């Protein structure tokens, strides 16, 4: 038997904090063959990234690797190498791709130099030779107009293009192993499909092995031959991709697989009844949005039409999903709807009058009925406020209690309502996990007993299993309190689960609007079709269709001069 390219045995890593050692990775073993792809799947805190970084010896200073751990790479023991020796391996034999393309490139260095730097370091190439090589690699990763792009700075590149550059840097010296740490998590779904395909293509051309780290089973399904599932620093299960998907042995793996929302699941009876009410006109209209527009001035006379003449209705008790990729205008729509931005034109009719004409007092009344839950549970809670004051503040503003005792009682009720303990009210936000914080954010929104809540990507910062619990909570609250939601998201699968009807946004316009089952079964607009086919399917037997993989530029779908028409009963499409 020939030796594997990478063999990790009994990897044990601890972090020292003060005097104590906390073990974050315990007895982790895995291996990757030449030209193969291994996926490590796990949620945040599973130790997957730390394990990957230890292969590069790029751990934080307070990390301690156990003496009995072994990492054999290309026939050599990595852990015995000095920093000087490691530097010859980093970037040459092992390339690394990071998660966030927006922050992983040096903002003050030209793109070309960032790629050729690696070549200059490792191959003793002259500046000129390195530049020639760098340009070749830029072509390989699909960058158009290489000669011009070479001298540009990162801010002139889109997210997807930056990730291609990061891949180019990792590939610069034809490494034997590529470590990709959540390479597509920060990207839109259509871009994600392209980047994954690019990685596969590169592997075919160069024969490099890939270690793919991700939280998303959809991503590993058609990328990897083998999968390692990690949880809390330990390997839960290992096997071929087909084995893991078809017959997972461990409960944890089963739970993770079950937490993947099913795109083909039928909607509940309850949702169907709601839709019947809406379509027959018996359900009350809560909000009517007419040709709402929000333009931002960009200076020099140009404007960004973030939201351009959008019209839709929201009915009491329903969830309307608003889906789109970054820059589609979905968040701006949500904010303009509540007058967090002032609309450029159009109206939002709430209880018979346009909220854009409200005076200060009416606005305050309106804020009591309409609430907002934000995307990032870390930055949307004031770190210096106790939970009781975060949730209590809306109560103070609208004077919703008679005395201190009542306020305390109300805060505790709200905490219990969102599934937290009443005793949490004395704590600060940093003491909670992301999921718990998002629950606090929801409790804050519920404090004023609103009728309508705009949920702006409330799940995207959370792990899949946590997402599932928050979705359940939102559904339960809707039933209990007869709430109406506008659910803004980029993730089609969760939108499907939570929404009764779905609107697809693209470049500031709604291109398709219908009930969620119909949308997924029978997408009519070409953009919706692209979006749906780009979702990574958690099924190893699934083949990606060709149309998803067209380069970024070709993805642009023209909606110029089109109008919104009802193509089938209750199925509206821009055409």
């Amino acid at each position, binding site marked *: 038997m020939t030796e594997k390219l990478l063999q990790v045995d009994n990897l044990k890593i601890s972090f020292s904090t003060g005097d104590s050692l906390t073990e974050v990775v315990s007895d982790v073993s895995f291996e990757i063959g030449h030209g193969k792809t291994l996926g490590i799947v796990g949620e945040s805190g599973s130790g997957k990234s730390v394990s990957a970084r230890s292969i*590069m010896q*790029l751990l934080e200073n307070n990390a301690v690797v156990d003496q009995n751990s072994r990492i054999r790479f290309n026939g050599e023991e990595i852990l015995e190498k000095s*920093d000087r020796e490691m*530097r*010859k*391996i*980093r*970037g*040459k034999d092992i*390339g*690394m791709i*990071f*998660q*966030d393309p927006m*922050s*992983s*490139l*040096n*903002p*003050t*260095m030209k793109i070309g130099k*960032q790629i050729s*730097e*690696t070549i200059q*370091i*490792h191959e003793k190439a002259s500046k000129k030779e390195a530049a020639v090589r760098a340009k070749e690699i830029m072509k390989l990763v699909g960058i158009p107009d290489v000669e011009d792009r070479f001298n540009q*700075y990162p*801010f002139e590149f889109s997210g997807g293009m930056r990730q291609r550059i*990061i891949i180019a*840097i*990792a590939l*610069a010296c034809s490494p034997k192993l590529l470590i990709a740490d959540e390479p597509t998590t920060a990207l839109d779904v259509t871009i994600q499909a392209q980047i994954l395909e690019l990685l596969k293509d590169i592997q075919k051309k160069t024969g490099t092995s890939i270690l793919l780290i991700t939280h998303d089973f959809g991503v590993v399904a058609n990328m990897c031959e083998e999968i390692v599932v990690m949880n809390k620093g330990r390997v839960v299960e290992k096997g071929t991709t087909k084995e893991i998907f078809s017959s997972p042995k461990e409960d944890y793996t089963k739970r993770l697989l079950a937490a993947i929302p099913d795109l083909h699941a039928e909607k509940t009876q309850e949702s169907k009844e709601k839709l019947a009410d809406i379509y027959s006109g018996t359900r009350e209209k809560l909000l009517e949005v007419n040709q709402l527009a929000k333009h931002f001035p960009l*200076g020099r006379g140009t404007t960004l039409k973030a939201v351009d003449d959008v019209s839709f209705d929201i009915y009491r008790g329903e969830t309307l999903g608003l889906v789109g990729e970054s820059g589609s205008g979905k968040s701006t729509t949500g904010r303009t709807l509540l007058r967090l931005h002032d609309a450029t034109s159009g109206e939002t009719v709430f209880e018979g009058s346009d909220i854009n004409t409200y005076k200060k007092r009416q606005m305050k009344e309106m804020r009591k009925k309409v609430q907002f839950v934000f995307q990032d549970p870390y930055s949307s809670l004031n770190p210096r406020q106790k939970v009781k004051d975060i949730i209590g503040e809306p109560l103070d503003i609208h004077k919703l209690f008679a005395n201190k005792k009542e306020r305390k009682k109300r805060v505790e009720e709200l905490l219990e309502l969102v599934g937290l303990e009443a005793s949490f009210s004395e704590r600060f936000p940093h003491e909670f996990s992301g999921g718990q914080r998002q629950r606090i954010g929801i409790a804050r929104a519920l404090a004023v007993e609103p009728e309508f809540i705009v949920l702006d990507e409330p799940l995207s910062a959370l792990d899949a299993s946590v997402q599932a619990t928050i979705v359940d909570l939102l559904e339960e609250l809707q039933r209990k309190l007869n709430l109406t939601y506008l659910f803004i998201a980029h993730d089609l699968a969760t939108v499907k689960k939570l929404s009764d009807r779905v609107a697809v946004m693209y470049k500031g316009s709604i291109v398709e609007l219908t009930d969620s089952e119909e949308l997924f079964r029978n997408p009519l607009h070409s953009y919706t079709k692209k979006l749906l086919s780009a979702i990574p399917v958690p099924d190893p037997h699934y083949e990606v269709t060709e149309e998803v993989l067209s380069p970024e530029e070709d993805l642009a779908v023209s909606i110029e001069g089109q109008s919104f028409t009802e193509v089938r009963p209750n199925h509206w499409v821009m055409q």
Partner: protein
Amino acid sequence: MLKFLTKRLIQTIPVLIGVTILTFSMVLLIPGDPAQIMAGESASPEQLEIVRERLGLNDPIPVQYFDYLSGVVRGDLGNSIRSGRAVSTEVFGRLAPTVELAFYSTLLSVFIGIIAGVVSAVRRYSLSDTLIMFAALFGLSMPNFWLGLMLIQWFVIGTGWFQASGWGTPQQMILPVLTLGTAGSAIIARMTRSSMLEVIDQDYIQTARAKGVSEKMVIYRHALKNAMVPVVTVVGLQFGSLLGGAVLTETVFAINGLGRLIINAIRARDFPIVQGGVLVFAFLFVFVNIIVDVLYRFLNKRIDLN
């Protein structure tokens, strides 16, 4: 770049006009009658009237201001009461030592501050970090006139290595530059340290390490330029406060610069000189900040977009 500079220069016009309004108002705000102050306590009403007429103090205030402004534009800042010579001649004659002092002090504080800040950040929580930060705190909290006196005590009276007055030879220049540059070094060191620590935690530093770049080059090539962006702003502001600090330092070291000229003019109630001196200080400050903006733009390419 040229377009940016032109735009930036046009933007300074309202600022400069604002400055002239303030220096002009100084005379109005002095308690009592400016003519009385200028002519002296014993002046007769007739003499006062002559002084008033000569200074245009009988005109309405807007007319007085426009007279003053047109003088400033033509480079005519009036005449010194004491010497009778043109204020512009007096002020520009004294400008060189002050600008040199501020410039060398800035150079010193940039040099010491950045090196100390980088060392401190790279060896966070080490002994050298603690010592540097302690020294910075000390340098920052020490009044510079006191530091100047101590330096004179040690190195002029004590060892006799340097001279305690005048400007021009290294022996005369080192102590004042050290005195004035210490606080700046401390501020820049602290700023560099915190900015550097922030940059070191950025993802692109990981990217650089993953390329196999040596730690020295990670700091020098990838971190430093990014960390300098906020530091440059501080250096610009620092230069302004150095001009102010020069007033004290020049007095301690008996340097015939603009600061000392102003101090003496205040003592002698020679208001045209004070007015002219302050105006030149303000113009210098504005000018230095334009240079800082250009540097800033050079460091941070993203500003190019706007």
